[in-house]
């Protein structure tokens, strides 16, 4: 039995794949009763969770990585493998993905129950689970690229789930294309890495277990300059996937998708895959200080810019989307400054509380009859107390209030930036803004008077039970894994390089971040809470230019639209014109020349066959010339 668990790790992503195939076949042949997809998918995820836990339970001492490679595609000396590789970071991802997925799949049954695309939605969820789990288990960079693209396509399908809405269709295409730009960088980066480290590899290439040695060889072959460029090309993948500047604009639009997938894909799991890839490529990135600096700055600026945009959002899902982007920025920044464990710790805590926040927003949207604008909410605490309570827990967690989970992970990141004054400043400012905009959404949604027209109601148990379950890790997981309460700290389980020492808390930073969080909370309360001491309108008018900048999301979207429609499309149109007029024009010209000479020949005899013969003769003449020139 234990051998079976150990040798069949690869089954973990296969369970949802089987569910996906069964639903597709069942729908197609019509033998599957409607709404039975749910049980299949939830069961498959549950199996994956149980399998992961069983494997964890009997994992050998010291959690030494488990690796298997199979040859997937071979040509000459090149062997591109597929396989699996589990270390502690991979195990953490497996647990997060399977557990959050399962809760969201249960929630989906309530959220999507009236949607005609119910089983299609479950099929896509299963497809996503397969891709995501395979990505997490990837034994090598090539395989990760394969599933990197597949989670991208699952995301595309789910964002465009309501594809008859033009906005959803556009958002889906936009997400895919932005990610393709990142994937282009990733592809070229992988190729460059393989090019420079070619002499190192024997058998399967690009395996994570040997990335360190390959990185050394590549650095020696490439020199620091080319090596840094290579690292940044690889990093372009995570920039798109984890919605970092400047390839972030797809994530807010991705909120067009049904809320359960906003929670699962665009908050908890897939967008975090970028951070996971950076973690997997750590042996490479750490050899380039410049690349690490760039990564840290991209993360920090993303965290900051996203937080500023979130200040002005009125759509509850968009506000949460910018918050996700901002938190991903924290994680990426942590990776860039070498705080490997802190980055992944925050990935994990964030997965739980952000999934919960999104599911709460879904519950609100469901309860308010598809209303997403917070200006038409308010006072919902009365109508949906469970949702309000869990949302409050999530808000407190993300804000970083002691002792909720976000506090521990975010605090580690901020503490790690302490030796970089500028990054520290950005991180602290972002923390303050986070507290403000999160409580702003909370107050606008749940406090004050109800400003909408409908009759809001609490969601059914199938929806609030997952919320309640998610509240547990949102509160506790950070403290448990903080290393302060007898359990091993996250950093002692998941780390890069040598086994770390037990770290003492940085009390000064702790104090500062709690203070900042409370400051943000207080400001939000003064503006949107009970008393409305400070009017938001006053802010809007006084800081008009800043407000315009933030309201237009720093004009990224406008810039990209201009590039696409004002530069590339005219260029493409010019190519098309060139093709029709110049190239085909020349063909037409020569054709009419032939026509004239053809008519001349027709005076001798008529018909195409003769032209043919004439062409043959011409060919023979050319040949004779050639032979005469080169053989005599």
């Amino acid at each position, binding site marked *: 039995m234990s051998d079976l668990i150990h040798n069949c790790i690869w089954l973990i992503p296969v369970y949802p794949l089987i569910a996906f195939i069964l639903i597709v076949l069942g729908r197609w042949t019509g033998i599957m009763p409607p709404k039975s997809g749910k049980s299949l998918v939830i069961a498959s995820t549950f199996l994956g969770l149980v399998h992961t836990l069983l494997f964890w339970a009997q994992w050998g001492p010291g959690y030494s990585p488990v*690796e*298997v*490679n199979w*040859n*997937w*595609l*071979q*040509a*000459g*000396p*090149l*062997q*591109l493998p597929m396989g699996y590789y589990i270390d502690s970071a991979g195990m953490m991802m497996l647990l997060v993905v399977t557990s959050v997925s399962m809760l969201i799949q249960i929630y989906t049954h309530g959220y999507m129950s009236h949607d005609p695309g119910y089983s299609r939605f479950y099929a896509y969820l299963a497809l996503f689970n397969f891709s995501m789990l395979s990505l997490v288990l990837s034994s090598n960079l090539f395989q990760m690229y*394969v*599933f990197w693209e*597949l989670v991208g*396509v699952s995301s595309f399908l789910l964002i465009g789930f309501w*594809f*008859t*809405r*033009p906005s959803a*269709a556009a958002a889906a*295409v936009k997400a*895919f*294309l932005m990610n*393709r730009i990142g*994937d*282009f960088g990733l*592809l*070229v980066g992988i*190729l460059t890495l*393989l*090019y420079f480290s*070619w*002499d190192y590899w*024997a*058998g*399967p290439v690009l395996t994570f277990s040997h990335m*360190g*040695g390959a990185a*050394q060889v590549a650095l020696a072959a490439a020199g620091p300059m080319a090596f840094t460029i290579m690292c940044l090309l690889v990093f372009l993948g995570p920039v798109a996937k984890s919605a970092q500047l400047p390839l972030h604009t797809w994530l807010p639009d991705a909120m067009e998708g049904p809320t359960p997938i906003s929670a699962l894909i665009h908050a908890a799991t897939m967008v975090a895959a970028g951070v996971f890839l950076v973690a997997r490529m750590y042996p490479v990135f750490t050899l380039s200080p410049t690349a690490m600096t760039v990564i840290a700055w991209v993360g920090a600026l993303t965290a900051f810019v996203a937080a500023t945009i979130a200040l002005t959002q009125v759509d509850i899902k968009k506000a949460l989307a910018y918050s996700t982007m901002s938190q991903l920025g924290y994680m990426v920044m942590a990776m860039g400054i070498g705080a490997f464990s802190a980055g992944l710790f925050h990935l994990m805590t964030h997965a739980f509380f952000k999934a919960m926040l999104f599911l709460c927003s879904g519950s609100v949207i469901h309860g308010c009859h598809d209303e997403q604008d917070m200006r038409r909410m308010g006072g919902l605490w009365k109508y949906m107390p469970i949702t309000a309570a869990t949302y409050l827990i999530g808000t407190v967690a993300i804000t970083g209030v002691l002792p909720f989970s976000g506090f521990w992970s975010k605090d580690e990141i901020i503490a790690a930036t302490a030796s970089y004054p500028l990054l520290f400043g950005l991180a602290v400012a972002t923390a303050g803004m986070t507290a403000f905009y999160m409580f702003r959404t909370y107050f606008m949604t749940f406090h004050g008077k109800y400003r909408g027209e409908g009759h809001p109601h609490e969601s059914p148990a199938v929806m609030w039970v997952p919320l309640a379950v998610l509240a547990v890790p949102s509160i506790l997981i950070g403290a448990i894994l903080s290393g302060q309460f007898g359990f091993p700290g996250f950093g002692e389980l998941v780390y890069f390089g040598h086994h770390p020492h037990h770290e003492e808390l940085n009390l000064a930073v702790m104090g500062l971040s709690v203070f900042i969080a409370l400051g943000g909370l207080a400001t939000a309360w003064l503006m949107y809470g009970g008393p409305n001491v400070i009017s938001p309108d006053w802010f809007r008018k006084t800081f008009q230019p800043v407000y315009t900048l933030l309201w237009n999301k720093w004009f990224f979207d406008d810039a990209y639209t201009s590039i696409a429609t004002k530069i590339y*499309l005219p*260029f*493409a*149109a010019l*190519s*098309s014109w060139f*093709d029709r007029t110049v*190239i085909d024009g020349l*063909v037409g010209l020569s054709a009419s020349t032939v026509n004239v000479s053809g008519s001349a020949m027709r005076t001798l005899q008529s018909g195409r066959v003769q032209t*043919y013969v004439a*062409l*043959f003769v*011409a*060919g023979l003449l*050319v*040949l004779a010339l*050639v*032979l005469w020139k080169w*053989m005599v």
Partner: protein
Amino acid sequence: MENIPILSILIFLPIVYALIIPFLPDDNKVLNTFSTVGSGLLFVLSALFWWLSAGHAPMETRAWLPQLHINYSVGADSLSWLLVVLTTFLLFMAVIASYTSIHKRLKLYYSMIFVLTTSILGVFLARDLFLFFLFWELELIPMYLLIAIWGGPRREFAAIKFVLYTLFGSIFMFAAILGAFFLAGTFMGQNTFAFDQLANLSGSGVAVTAQILLFLGFFLAFAIKLPMVPFHTWLPDAHVEAPTPISMLLAGILLKMGAYGMVRFCFGWFPQAAEILAPYLVLLGMINIIYTAGVAMVQADLKKLIAYSSVSHMGFVLLGLGALNAVGIKGAIFQMISHGLISAGLFMIVGTLYNRTHTRMIAEMGGFGKNLPTIYFFALLIALASLGLPLLAGFPAETLVFYGAFLSKAFDVIPWFGGAQLNLSIQTLTVISAVGVVLGAAYLLWMLQRVFMGPLFPKWGDLKDASVSEVFVLSGLALPILIFGLVPGWIADPLESVSVDLSKPFGVQTEAVLPPAKPNYVSTAALADQREGESH
């Protein structure tokens, strides 16, 4: 088994069908059934024969015109077999696709399709250059008629343009064929058209300049067929006018004749010339990929968009071949197969939409995903395969091409006129070509968005979803796309010896090939130990 002329059976069985068809009753049902059963049998036979002849390369040679050193000689290696099975398979699919798109003069139509099949199979199986040329030219007659009789409004123009363009290339190929024939006499003591002897021509002392000329003679003909920019403008016209099944065959198989010829003759016989010309091929391949992707982006006509996308993807064949190593060459051949399945599928999608709406204008379509969910499903799957989504057939081909080209040491600069040089290495050109992956996604997804997503136009409210025969064709094409994407080894492994053999002559001087393969890992644990030892 050895004594049965399996290859000749495959080549001439379709002609037998074509001869039987005139005597059948003039009933569409009978003709459809006969052609379906016949092409299905041909497909099964070709797959069966390949399987039975595994391990040895069948070869049949009979003296034909000994005075002129012309033999009837056919043979097959894994490259030929793959293309033969692709041909018979796509023929089977095209015949079924004809149910819904061809309604007039079915006798002539099916006869011509079978004559076309014979000529294509002949091209892939011929082992005598004269015979090859005969089959190559024979293909024009049925293709001309198939476009000119069953095509759209400008069918005659498109058909003539197609024929003249191919003929234009054939002149040069014919010159090269005769050149090879006589050079063989001079340098090897025997005028010959036989492939296995001509393959030794380059090593027999023929001047490199002469080899380059022969290479170019063949190349021009094949570049037109491929098609390669700037010789591609016949293709959008031909596709737009051709009926759906003919478009499927045109994109799926006929273009592969050009690619096949390049592999077999240009690279197989004149490696020295190939090595010298590789930089230009890669440059042209890059232009093919990027330029036509741009042109595809702005097409208002759905079928033209797909036609340009098909041209763009054939650029990967040039890029892969120009890498001059086993990885790139295998990728190029893999791309032929993938492109055959995917482009046939895309044209089938266009055909199903045209049959319902009688328009090909994207602006007149929209929201079809709502009432044509089955067609949407397949359109999505095949378009995703076309843009190179992993675990679908387009991905392994593009992967091998990119990896092969990027790891290649084929050239660092491109020699240019007057002793100047272009500062473009094969790595740079590969990276630029990889932009095509983004552009391909852009025009295909934008197409899907405009055609299948968004609100349904009221006038298309009562369209019916795919019929049984359409689902059969679409799933028939989707299944191998999925299978070869999941298990690319089923295509890649049979091609190992072909691609390694083709890459062997390269790099003797330039080290263009990759280093030799190293032994497989024994076990991960043992390897980890070994690595530890190395790093300390």
